[in-house]
């Protein structure tokens, strides 16, 4: 892993912006279980009020707004990271049951559970003795 990989990467594709802050691409983990896909996104500085998950057709968009990275009354003297908003989009396949998507936020980490639709869940087929 190079040095750069550990720093936040800026999302330059974001065009529609009103706020004058940078937008970053949150780092995500995605893993699959038999029942669902789990998407975990690192978005330090957000909480349940400032994060949005939108699903439009098959585009899942996660975004987070970080109000203020400043420490009150203090001035910045040394900086290794910048504070800004987050945005990233994903394309979902039809295999996801859109009605049952669940999202939780804990310590700046957004966790999405994307359950698989019934038709694609692995099924065990009972074999009857002939």
């Amino acid at each position, binding site marked *: 892993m190079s040095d750069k990989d*550990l720093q936040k990467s800026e999302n330059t594709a974001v065009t529609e912006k009103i706020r004058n802050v940078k937008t970053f691409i949150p780092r995500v*983990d995605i893993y699959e279980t038999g029942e669902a896909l789990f998407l975990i996104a690192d978005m330090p*500085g957000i909480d349940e009020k400032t994060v949005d998950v939108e699903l439009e057709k098959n585009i899942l968009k996660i975004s987070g707004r970080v109000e203020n990275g400043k420490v009150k009354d*203090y001035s910045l003297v040394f900086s290794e990271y910048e504070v800004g908003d987050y945005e990233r989009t994903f394309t979902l396949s039809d295999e996801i049951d859109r009605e049952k998507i669940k999202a939780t936020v*804990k*310590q*700046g980490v957004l966790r999405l559970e994307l359950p698989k639709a019934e038709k694609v869940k692995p099924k065990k087929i009972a074999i009857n003795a002939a």
Partner: protein
Amino acid sequence: MFGPGIWRMKRFADSVPEIMDLQREINRLFSNVGQSTALDYPAINVWEKDDSLVVTMEMPGLEAENINVSVTGATLTISGVAKADPLKEGETYLRQERAVGNFQRNFQLPFQVDSKKVEAKYEKGVLNIALPRLKEDLPKKIKINS
């Protein structure tokens, strides 16, 4: 600790910029002692007001009990462990970008810290450490008798 004294500055005035650069490089080299890779991770921001510093660090998704902050004199050490979700058999990562594992960073602070008054809080995945300067370490005004 490694700050150049005034007398050195004066005697080698021409080479001061080079010496400062070299000093910075060497400090950077040793700031990661105890860490397996020489990376600035997690990144920090340092804030200053009067006689106190605030260090903020983005480290989302940790448990507060897995973060260790310690101050010895003028050295701040932050270490911790980020854990991945335990996967059951047959479950696979399709994408893994988030950092996991142990990390440790040491910082040389510009003054002695009053370790009893250090406060650290962890909110929204951001660690915030307030480091007040030790009273005995404050510059003293010397009275001049005439």
